């Protein structure tokens, strides 16, 4: 007897639609998204709307904001602060994003293998992860930058290399949980190889918290870059927010804007990223969705 022609009942929305709705209901996430849009807009459209060279002198050094030549004032070399923030944003965001990608990729690879295979492989990979976790990350990054030279690329690699363990732990926990689900066993009995199980079956299910972690890693990497630049270990040839702060830090009391304005830019960016990250996290969590 064949019954049940096709599923009945009101069709629940597709998970992606459901996610968008939940996200849209979250006010702070929307504010974060708008802030992020402002930051990205300023950084990428800024050079067209405000075509001032960030590296040339436009006024006397330490001209306060609201001057005739520089709306946000000038730094210790008389360079335009607004142009500097627009120009520096690109490097800062690029370093943040690239470092986050590196840490997420390494973290996922290490975490997924550890969580999927378990046993000796897990023990070994987790020992390596713990080794990286117990090292003071800022010091390690400083050592790496000192050895390999302070270029944007080495800074990015250094940040990525020290910040993956958290992602690895998260990925491992997710893999250990999901690998026990029946549909993974079903895929195995359907003839799936380990690579297929790891990357095609388990990883997509493990991604939601990892996406959130990746977003937060971008924020952390931006702060990290600022910290390195502040300590004078940034790339002196490329304008970044951290570099502006680092170069002007001695004049904080005389010209507050030279340090405060890039600081505010960093603050807004990191805040926006964590608000959006939290929003994604809540929207992906079915228990919170209903509220």
């Amino acid at each position: 007897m064949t019954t049940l022609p096709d599923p009945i009942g009101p069709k629940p929305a597709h998970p992606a639609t459901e996610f968008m709705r939940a996200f849209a209901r979250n006010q702070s996430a929307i504010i974060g998204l708008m802030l992020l849009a402002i930051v990205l807009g300023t950084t990428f459209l800024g050079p067209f709307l405000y075509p001032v060279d960030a590296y040339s002198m436009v006024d006397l050094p330490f001209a306060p904001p609201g001057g005739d030549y520089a709306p946000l004032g000038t730094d210790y070399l008389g360079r335009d602060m607004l142009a500097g923030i627009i120009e520096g944003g690109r490097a800062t965001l690029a370093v943040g994003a690239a470092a986050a990608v590196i840490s997420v990729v390494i973290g996922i690879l290490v975490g997924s293998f550890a969580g999927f295979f378990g046993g000796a492989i897990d023990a070994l990979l987790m020992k390596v992860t713990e080794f990286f976790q117990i090292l003071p990350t800022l010091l390690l990054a400083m050592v790496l930058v000192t050895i390999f030279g302070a270029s944007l690329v080495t800074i990015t690699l250094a940040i990525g290399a020290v910040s993956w363990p958290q992602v690895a732990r998260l990925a491992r926990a997710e893999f250990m949980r999901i690998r026990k689900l029946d549909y993974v066993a079903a895929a195995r009995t359907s003839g799936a190889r380990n690579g297929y199980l790891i990357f095609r079956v388990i990883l997509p299910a493990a991604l939601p918290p990892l996406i959130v972690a990746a977003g937060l890693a971008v924020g952390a990497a931006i702060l990290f870059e600022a910290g390195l630049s502040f300590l004078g270990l940034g790339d002196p040839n490329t304008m970044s927010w951290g570099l502006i702060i680092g170069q002007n830090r001695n004049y904080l009391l005389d010209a507050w804007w030279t340090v405060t304005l890039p600081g505010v830019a960093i603050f807004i960016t990191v805040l926006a990223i964590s608000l959006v990250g939290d929003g994604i996290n809540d929207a992906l969590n079915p228990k919170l969705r209903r509220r």
Partner: protein
Amino acid sequence: MQPILEIKNLQVGVDTGKSVQSVLDGVSLQLFPGKTLGVVGESGCGKSMTALATMGLLPDRFSVTGGSIILAGEDLLAAKPSRLRQLRGNALSMIFQEPMTALNPVLTVERQITEVIELHQKKSSAEAREIALEMLRAVQIPGPEERLIAYPHELSGGMRQRVMIAIALACRPKVIIADEPTTALDVTVQAQIFRLLRDLQMQTETAIMLITHDLGAVAEMADDVAVLYAGKCVESGTVEAILGAPAHPYTRGLMSCTPRLRLGAAANDPQAEGLGEIPGMVPPLGRFPKACRFAPRCALADARCHAEQPPLVDTAPGHSALCWKTSPEKAVA
């Protein structure tokens, strides 16, 4: 005999944001002291909603839209929240399906039992402890003194359910609502829990509302039965009447769907092998048919069943069914 708990024409709706959908439509039940009422049906029929409405614990967006729930002469629907809190755990308590999640994992067994006692009765902690110990003995937990200081994870599934029962009984409630109390347990343990509940009921005269999907559990425990389907009570009566001569096609369908354990000489009887089937499935909320809600799945349904609300027919004293087709010759079919 006076019912201790009477639910009359209970209506529960859920607010979907656009409209209010009916979840329970005119459910009427009676519980008598010392008796067990089995409430049966598939998932989505409204059994758990009936229990939660009675406890005053309906989830968000669900609300009672009509009817009355009268516990010992007091209308629970008119009671203030503070009064309900007073009654819950005291005159009216609940046993849940999954004792592991219903128990607090960070409190000892003693604390969980004494908590209810201290909440509802003026007892010193020493007295409460004494009652807790007595309750553990009543639910036949071996070594009750040692178990008092145990945490839920240190107990087996059956022991946890016994602790749940001890908590439910601690304040000598008039009514216990047991929502699938043995579904998570092994069969041999299930038999022990049912026996325990029956023994305790005999001593305490507690009325039990047994919410279950399992007609076997009903046969084992219940004195009276109400069969729910898609938010309506489609048949009610004594357990002998309902299981012996079911009048509603849905009840008959459920009976024929349950595989029959045939022991001894019956084991090799090829006649008894077939397994009946109810086609389709319970309609989801908001998709309930206008006339008889079971009509789309019913083999006996005709044009009238699809067009008009069926009447509540008394097929025997105390046995009624919500159906157009309850005449005796049809009932045999």
